[in-house]
C-alpha cells in the first residue's frame, strides 16, 4: 500500500492537472468513489486496533477534507473557465445601433397650454371652454362692441355662411377672441368668478406674425373687490412664473378694448439684438398682452350688477408665448405639420408641467 502522504500528493497532483470537469469527476471517483484509493484506506481501518484506528482515522480524515476542498476549488475554477469561453464565443458588437423607436412629441401650443393652466391654477383659476363658431351676441354685442363700432374693424372677422338661411347674414362668425367665453361663463355662473379660457381664435390675416388661426388665453376675474392693482399683481406673478425669472421689468400702457375700461397693454422688458431676443432686463420692451377692468356694459349684458361687482380681464397669445419662451421664429410654421419642425420644437410626452415639478419643457435629444 502506498503511503498516505503519497496518496494525498498524487490525488492533489491529479486534481490540479485535470483539464475539464469530466476529468475531474473521473479523478474524484478514483479517489473518493466506492473503490477509490482513499475509500480503500478507510475500509482498512476496521482491521486496526482501537489506538491505531483513532490515529490513522484522524489522518485519513484530514486528507479527505484537503482533497475534497481541492476538488471544489478546481471545479469552480474549471466552471468559471468554461463559462468565460462560452461568453467569449457569444460576443456581439454592442456599438451597433439600437432598434428604431418612433418618438412622439407634444406640440408647443399644448405645452404652453399646460404651463399657463398650471400657473393660473395656482392662483385659483379654473379653465372654461366655449365654441369656436360664435354668434354676434357673444363675440361682439355682449362685449360692448355693437354693429358699426370701429373696433370691429380692428380685427378682420371670418363670417360663417349660415346653413339655415339662403342669403348672406352675419349671424355666425368664428370667434375673433376667446373673450366670448367670458360671456358664456357669466351667463352660467354668478360671481365670484376666476377663469381662464384658452382656445383657437380666428382673424383674416396672414404673415410671419399673423395666421388666420391662432391661440389665445382669456382671463376673467369678477368679484366684489378685485382692483386694477390686483390685475397688475396677477399678471406680474404670471410672467415671472412663466418665464421663470426672479424679476422681470414690466410696464403698462393705457390702451383701448371695447370690453374693458380702463384698458392697458402690458410690455415686458427684453434685450433685442439682430439675432436674439432675451426676455428680462434690457433696453427694449415687448408687448405681451392686453388687459383691463371689465367694462360695466359687459357685466350688464350678463345680468351682473356693475355697482356691486367688478373685476378684470386679459387676453394673451399662446403661440406668441411659445415663440418667446422657446425661441420659435415664425408663427406660420406652428401649423404646417412638418415632421422635422415637430420633432425639433415638440416636447417629450412625459415631460409634464406643474408648479411643483417645474414648468419648462425639455425637447430631449432627437433620435
Amino acid at each position, binding site marked *: 500500500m502506498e503511503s498516505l502522504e503519497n496518496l494525498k500528493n498524487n490525488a492533489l497532483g491529479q486534481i490540479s492537472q485535470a483539464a475539464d470537469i469530466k476529468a475531474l469527476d473521473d479523478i474524484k471517483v478514483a479517489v473518493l468513489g466506492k473503490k477509490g484509493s482513499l475509500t480503500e484506506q478507510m475500509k482498512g481501518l476496521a482491521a486496526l486496533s482501537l489506538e491505531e484506528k483513532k490515529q490513522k482515522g484522524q489522518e485519513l480524515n484530514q486528507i479527505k477534507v484537503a482533497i475534497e476542498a481541492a476538488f471544489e476549488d478546481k471545479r469552480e475554477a474549471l466552471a468559471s473557465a468554461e463559462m468565460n469561453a462560452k461568453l467569449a464565443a457569444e460576443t456581439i458588437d454592442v456599438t451597433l445601433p439600437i432598434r428604431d423607436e418612433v418618438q412622439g412629441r407634444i406640440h408647443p401650443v*399644448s405645452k404652453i397650454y399646460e404651463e399657463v393652466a398650471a400657473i393660473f391654477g395656482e392662483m*385659483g383659476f379654473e379653465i372654461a371652454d366655449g365654441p369656436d363658431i360664435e354668434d354676434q351676441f357673444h363675440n361682439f354685442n355682449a362685449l360692448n362692441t355693437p354693429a358699426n363700432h370701429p373696433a370691429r374693424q380692428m380685427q378682420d372677422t371670418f363670417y*360663417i355662411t349660415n346653413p339655415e338661411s339662403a342669403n348672406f347674414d352675419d349671424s355666425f362668425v368664428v370667434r375673433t377672441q376667446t373673450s366670448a367665453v367670458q360671456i358664456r361663463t357669466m351667463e352660467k355662473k354668478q360671481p365670484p368668478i376666476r377663469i381662464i379660457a384658452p382656445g383657437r381664435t380666428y382673424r383674416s390675416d396672414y404673415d410671419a406674425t399673423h395666421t388666420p388661426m391662432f391661440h389665445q388665453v382669456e382671463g376673467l376675474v369678477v368679484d366684489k373687490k378685485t382692483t386694477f392693482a390686483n390685475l397688475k399683481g396677477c399678471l406680474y406673478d404670471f410672467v415671472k412664473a412663466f418665464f421663470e425669472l426672479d424679476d422681470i421689468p414690466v410696464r403698462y400702457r393705457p390702451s383701448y378694448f371695447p370690453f374693458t375700461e380702463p384698458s392697458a397693454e402690458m410690455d415686458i422688458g427684453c434685450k433685442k439684438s439682430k439675432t436674439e431676443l432675451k426676455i428680462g432686463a434690457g433696453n427694449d420692451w415687448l408687448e405681451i398682452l392686453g388687459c383691463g377692468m371689465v367694462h360695466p356694459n359687459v357685466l350688464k349684458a350678463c345680468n351682473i350688477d356693475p355697482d356691486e361687482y367688478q373685476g378684470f380681464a386679459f387676453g394673451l397669445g399662446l403661440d406668441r408665448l411659445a415663440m418667446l419662451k422657446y425661441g420659435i421664429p415664425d408663427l406660420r410654421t406652428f*401649423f404646417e405639420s412638418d*415632421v422635422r419642425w415637430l420633432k425639433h420644437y415638440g416636447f417629450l410626452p412625459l415631460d409634464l408641467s406643474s408648479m411643483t415639478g417645474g414648468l419648462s419643457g425639455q425637447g430631449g435629444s432627437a433620435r
Partner: protein
Amino acid sequence: MKFTLSWLKEHLDTSASVDEISETLTKIGLEVEEVINPLADMEGFCTARIEEVSDHPDSDHLHILKVNDGKEILQIVCGAPNVKKGMMGILAHVGAYIPLFNDKIKVGKVRGVESFGMMCAEDEIGVGSDHEGIIELPATAEIGLSLAQVYAADPVFDINITPNRAECLGVRGVARDLAAAGLGKLKPLEIKKIAGKFVSPIKVKVEDKKSCPTYVGRYIKGVNNKAKTPDWMKKRLEAIGLRSISPLVDITNYINYDMARPLHVFDADKLKGNICVRMAKDGEGFESLEEKVYNLDNQSLGICDDEGIQCLGGIMGGIAKGCSADTTNVFLESALFNPVCIARTGRKFQIDSDSRYRYERWVDPCSNISGAEYATKMILDICGGEASELEIAGDENYTPVKTFIRPQRVKDFIGIEVAPSKIVEILERLGFKVETQEDKIWATSPTWRGDIEGEHDLVEEVVRMIGLDNIPAASMEKGYFPKQTLTASQRRTVTVKHELAARGLLETVTWSFTDGKLAKYFRRSDKAIEICNPITEELGEMRPSLLVNLLIGVKNNIARGYGNINLFECGPEFFGCHPGEQKMIAAGVRCGQTSKKHWLKENRNMDVFDAKADALAAIAAANGPFDSAKISLDAPAYYHPGRSGALRLGANVIAYFGELHPIVLKKFGIKQRVVAFEVMLDNIPLPRNSGDKAKKKLELSAFQPVDKDMAFIVDASVKADDILAVARNADKRYITDVRIFDVYEGENMEKGKKSVALTLTFQPWETSFTDKDIETLMSKVEQAEKSKCNAILRDA
C-alpha cells in the same frame, strides 16, 4: 397717425426732448410705434471741402472739383454756378441714395471726365427747396460730419390712436393730451370770424338731419389754385406721407391732420344748382375721385347738386366736381355726419379715407363753423379770393355728456387713493368743466371727446394721467384652496395627447378650416360649414374631420422626402354653427414603415392594427369602457371598405380606424398606403363624479393558471372578435384570458374556411385543476364555439 416735432410745437409750448415726448405719449395711451429721423437714415453723405476748382475742357459751365471728405480727395464734375475753392458743402458719395432723383449716385463720366460723387443742392437731400446752386456751409464747418450732425431734422412721430381717442387724430388733440400730462402748455388757438363779403350763391338743404345734423358751406370766389403750397405745409404733409397736390387739397388734408376736422372743397363752377344732402336712391351711381364707380344703396348719404351725387358724405369726394389747377371759384364744406351711417357705407363699399376714419370715430360736433373759418383763412392767405357769408344748414346745438366720478370709487377700482383735488386738476386740463358736489365730482365733457359715457370713463382718464406704472401691484388673494383647474373632459384630452405622443406620434396643430374640395369626401352630413370670406379657397370650409388637414400634412412631408409619418392632432371637428355642434376629436395618421432600413431587419409596413392600437390606447387613456366597446365594420366611405372598423358604445361611435381609401388618398396626391384613426372623445362617457375613487378589490388566486391551445375551423367570414368573445364567455370565472395565436387560410384548408388557433388561460380559484376540470372547461368552449360560430375543433 403721424406728425412732426415742429408741427406738434405749433400747438404745444414745450422744451421736452424727443425721447421725453415719446415716452410720455406711450404712457398716456398714445403708443409710439416709431420716431423717424429722416436724415439719420440717409447714408453716404458728409460735409466736404472743395480744395480745387478747374474748368472742364469740353464745357463752358462745368467744373472739375477736387473734394476733400477727410479721408480722400475725390474728383467730381459739377455744373453749379456757385462753386469756389475752399467752399464747404455736402458731398454725396458713390452709392448714396438721392430722394429727389429716386436713384443712387454712380461713378460717371461727364464729357470724358470721370466723376466720383456729387455736391448736393438743398432740394436734392430734402433739407430745403433751393436748387440755384450747391449748399454752402460756413467755412468753419468740420469735414466728415453726417447729415444728421449738420441739420436739425424734424423728427416724425408715428403713433397708434385707439378708436376711442378720435380727437388725437389731429395734432392739436395730441398736444392737449401731452399738456394735460404736464409736458408743456397748450398754445391758445384763436380762430377769427371772417366776415362774408356776399351771400353764397349756392344754398344748402339737408333732407336727412339724422345723418347730417350740421352742414356749413362757404362760397369763395377768385382763388388761385396754381399758387404754391407754402413750404412749411408741404414739408409737414410730405413728412407724414401725403403728397402735395394743390393748395386747396393740401389745405383740407392739413386741417384734417391738424385739427381732426375733415373738410371738402367743390369746384363751384362745376356744381349745378344748390347742394342737397340726401340719401342715395338704390342703384344711384357715383364716381369717386379715385375714379371708381359705385352703385349706391338707399342708406348711403350723398352730397348732391342738380346732376346727382357729387360727394359720398364724409367718405370721399367725386371726380366730376372736384378742384383742378384751373379752379377759381370754390364751395367749401365743413359738416357733421352720423358715425354709424359713415361706418356702414364705408364698409359696404369698402372705401377707406382719412375722412371716413375720423367721422366714424368722432368729429367734434362744434367744430363745423370754426373749421370753416380756419380753412377760409388759409385759403385766402394762400390762394387769395373773397369769401361769402357762411351758408349753414342745421345747427351746432350739441349737449355734452355730464357725468360724475367719486374719489371713493377710484380707490375701490384701482386700489390706491387719488386726492379729489388731483382728480379735478386732471379733468380740467383735459378740457372737462368740473364742479364738486359732496362726494361726487361732476364733469362736463369737452365736445371733442365722444368716448365719455360714465364714471368708468372718467376713472380711465384719471388712471391714464397718474400713470398705470404708479399703481402698485398686489398679488391675487388666495381666499380659498384652489379647485382642480382643468375640467374632467379637458384633463382627459391632455392625457390622450400625452398617451398618443408616448406611442410615437408627433402632435400637430392644424387649421380649423380646410379645403372644401378635399373636405367633401369626409363630411358626415351633406351640409358643409363654409366661411363666407376665407383667406383662400383652400381654407374655406370648417373641417368635418381632422383627417383632411392631417393628410395634407402627410402629402407635404412625403414631398419633403419624409415618408415614414406618424402624426396626430386633438381638436374640434364641425357639423353646425351652434354650441354643441363641434366635437373634440383625437385623430392620427401613420404611413410608411415602422422604421427606416435597419440591420435587425424588423421594420415592417404600418398597417391597420397600428391604427387600431392607437385608437384603443386613446380610448383607454380617456378612461373609456374598453371592454364593452363593440367593433362594427361600417367605418365611413373614406376608409378602405375591407380594412376598417368602428368602435361603438351602444349606438355611439367612439372611434373609427383603418386603412384609408386609395381613391380618397389619390385626391390628395398620396400614392402610399395610409392608416388612420379618429377617436370621438365627446362620445366617451365621463367618469361619474361620485367622489369614490376606490378601485375594485384585487382578487388574487393562490393557484397557478394553466394555458391550453385550441384550434377551430370556421367560415372565413366569422369575425375573430366573435370567436374571442364566445370563448371568454364560455366560463367567465375560470377563463381569464383568450388570445389568438394563429390564423390560417389557404392550402390544406377547405375553400371559404379558416383555422383560428386560441390560447386559453384557465385560472383555478379554490383548488388546483385536475385534468378532468380542464377537459370540462375546454369542452364548454368547444360547445359554445360550435353553437355560436359554427366552429369545428381541429384535432390536436
